[in-house]
């Protein structure tokens, strides 16, 4: 009789009080409400709708959550789910880790950010120096949003706009002209000379100068018809020119000068005058490849750290995927033991499916795989029976 009475009272309460009141009265009876308060409170929480994310009884996910990672967030933020798939997508967004930057309940910062904006960014981008001898003012003030978007962008480096337009959004054109007297040509491509974060040089000019640039502009910009073309680079970099006469080459890219797709002709942060980190430079064209493997469970350490040139010949190669050596030699440079003692590989061992030479990459996919040792299929059976069908 007592049980029937309880059910009646609970049912009546459920009808009489809205969910908000239920959360207020039920959840916060145990969970301290103060722990969920702050300057900015997540809307469902503010409305007392704890059940929007949590199941009060039982759930498949930690914290009695209804779903995991971004799937939970996108159950309300549906518009963002589609928008965050466009163009270049920030790594935590791509891997559904919204909580890498945001907190779910309340924060003292807008956008429910975990920490101050720059601290949130530096939390992952820990190789970026926090300060330079000459630091760009928005960078010094931790205003990463001045130039970058946090989730995705159609522009490289998650920029808000084309690089020059981002610069011009603060720097007035006429002021720039004054600072670039005798500039040979139209003032553009700011990042070719300047590091937008900071530098040890005045005017945040990048640290390493291309030798001809250090001697003045005329070396390249006063040579008649070849000025600015790929040839103007290759006449000095002969070895690169030879390397490009290969089955596959990177003699491609936007614009007349293919070299500047990856290199700055003027100044850079390191000796190769790359326009960014290797991963950034490669991603500008190979976003599909990087995105495909980025979230795989098992990745080769070099692929993970984004040192693409460890295995790939970046100018030209006669091998598939522009590898530096064949599918065995490239691996045994480091994996010496496997080079001597392993499943038979080499010219005399034939992949029965295709008649091609068996190499390490016949079974392994170093870029990334969901199987241990970056295997192409599961090592327990599926991989072996690709060729050993009788087993």
């Amino acid at each position, binding site marked *: 009789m007592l049980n029937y009475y309880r059910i009646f009272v609970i049912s009546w309460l459920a009808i009489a009080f809205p969910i908000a009141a239920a959360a207020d009265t039920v959840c916060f009876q145990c969970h301290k409400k103060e722990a969920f308060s702050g300057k900015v409170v997540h809307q469902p929480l503010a409305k007392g709708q704890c059940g929007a994310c949590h199941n009060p009884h039982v759930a498949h996910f930690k914290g009695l959550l209804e779903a995991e990672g971004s799937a939970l967030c996108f159950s309300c933020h549906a518009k963002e789910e589609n928008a965050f798939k466009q163009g270049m997508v920030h790594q935590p967004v791509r891997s559904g880790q919204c909580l890498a930057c945001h907190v779910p309940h309340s924060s003292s910062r807008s956008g429910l950010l975990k920490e101050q904006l720059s601290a949130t960014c530096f939390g992952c981008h820990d190789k970026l120096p926090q300060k330079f001898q000459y630091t760009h003012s928005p960078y010094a003030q931790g205003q990463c949003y001045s130039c970058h978007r946090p989730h995705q962008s159609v522009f490289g480096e998650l920029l808000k706009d084309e690089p020059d337009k981002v610069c011009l959004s603060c720097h007035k054109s006429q002021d720039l002209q004054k600072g670039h007297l005798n500039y040979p040509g139209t003032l553009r491509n700011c990042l070719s000379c300047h590091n937008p974060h900071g530098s040890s040089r005045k005017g945040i000019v990048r640290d390493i100068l291309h030798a001809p640039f250090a001697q003045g502009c005329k070396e390249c910009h006063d040579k008649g018809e070849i000025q600015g073309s790929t040839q103007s680079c290759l006449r000095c970099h002969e070895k690169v020119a030879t390397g490009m*006469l290969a*089955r596959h080459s990177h003699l*491609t*890219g*936007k614009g007349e000068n293919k070299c500047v797709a990856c290199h700055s002709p003027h100044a850079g942060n390191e000796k190769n005058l790359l326009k960014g980190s290797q991963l950034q430079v490669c991603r500008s*064209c190979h976003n599909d490849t990087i995105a495909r493997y980025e979230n795989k469970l098992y990745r080769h350490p070099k692929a993970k750290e984004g040192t693409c040139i460890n295995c790939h010949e970046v100018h030209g190669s006669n091998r*598939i995927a522009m590898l530096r050596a064949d599918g065995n030699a490239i691996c045994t440079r480091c994996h010496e033991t496997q080079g001597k003692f392993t499943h038979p590989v080499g010219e005399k061992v034939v992949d029965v499916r*295709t*008649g091609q030479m068996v190499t390490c990459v016949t079974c392994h996919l170093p870029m990334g795989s969901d199987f241990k040792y970056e295997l192409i299929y599961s090592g327990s059976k599926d991989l072996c029976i690709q060729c050993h069908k009788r087993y």
Partner: protein
Amino acid sequence: MKYVKNILSQSALLAVSIFMVATTSLAAEPWAWKATLDGAGSGQAIVMPTALYIDAERQRYYVIDSGNNRLLSYSQEGNFLLAFAAEGKLQIPYDMVRDNADVIWVVEKGRNSLTSINIKAKEILTHIIKDGSRTLVLDRIDYKDSIFYILDKETGQIALLNSDLTVKSWISCAECTSGIVDFKLVNDGIWALDLLDKKVVQFDHDGKLIKNFDVGQTLEFPVSLAIGPAGNIYVLDRHAPAIAVFDTEGSFKYTFLAKGWGRGELYFPIEILFDPWGGLCVVEEGNGRVEVFGR
């Protein structure tokens, strides 16, 4: 008379209906593997084939076995005929055509040469192609009406060469910021592909842009294109790998084929083209073969 008319009109209606049903079922038929051109017949596996040349007149396929520096010929049925290594002189052959005078022209990446092979005269000559002072970086090649169409990899433009190998004119795509990576000559002009912009472009015979359309929503790394018998545009995605089909206005129709090492699967495909017998040929650099698909 009226009775006869009725019968005739009904018969015509029936015939049209049967024809429509037949063609609809034909159109809906999926692409299926038909033949494989591999190195088995030559006693040596093909290594990194880069192109296929089809000689409709002789009913022959020619596979450019780039990794072994040789050319392999096959019958229309896909039977191996001959391996030709040009006395071991070829250096990374990449693509080829045969001209009206029966001379074979091979793009050699290793020497950046358009090498002529006159088998009857037993003569092999290398030719470095220049436009003014600039040397062209040779890539894809085709031949029509005594004109060589050759892709210059450095500029991403197509050079039209006279028989004496002088540059007659250029076809360039102002819309394509990254340049052309593949092209096909068809009766109504030239279709070309821009990899980084993920764009298909159509030119008339004079190189005037007719139209272009974006394939970026469907493809990740488009490297080759072919024009099907019905006029649809087939675009090869090297990284997916798969083939996407678009109509002439650029509307996406469907994709087919997938990654793998078995029959009918693709691994690092590099070129597609249609043979005159309705087959769709896919050159697979990764699997060392050419697969021919039919319906």
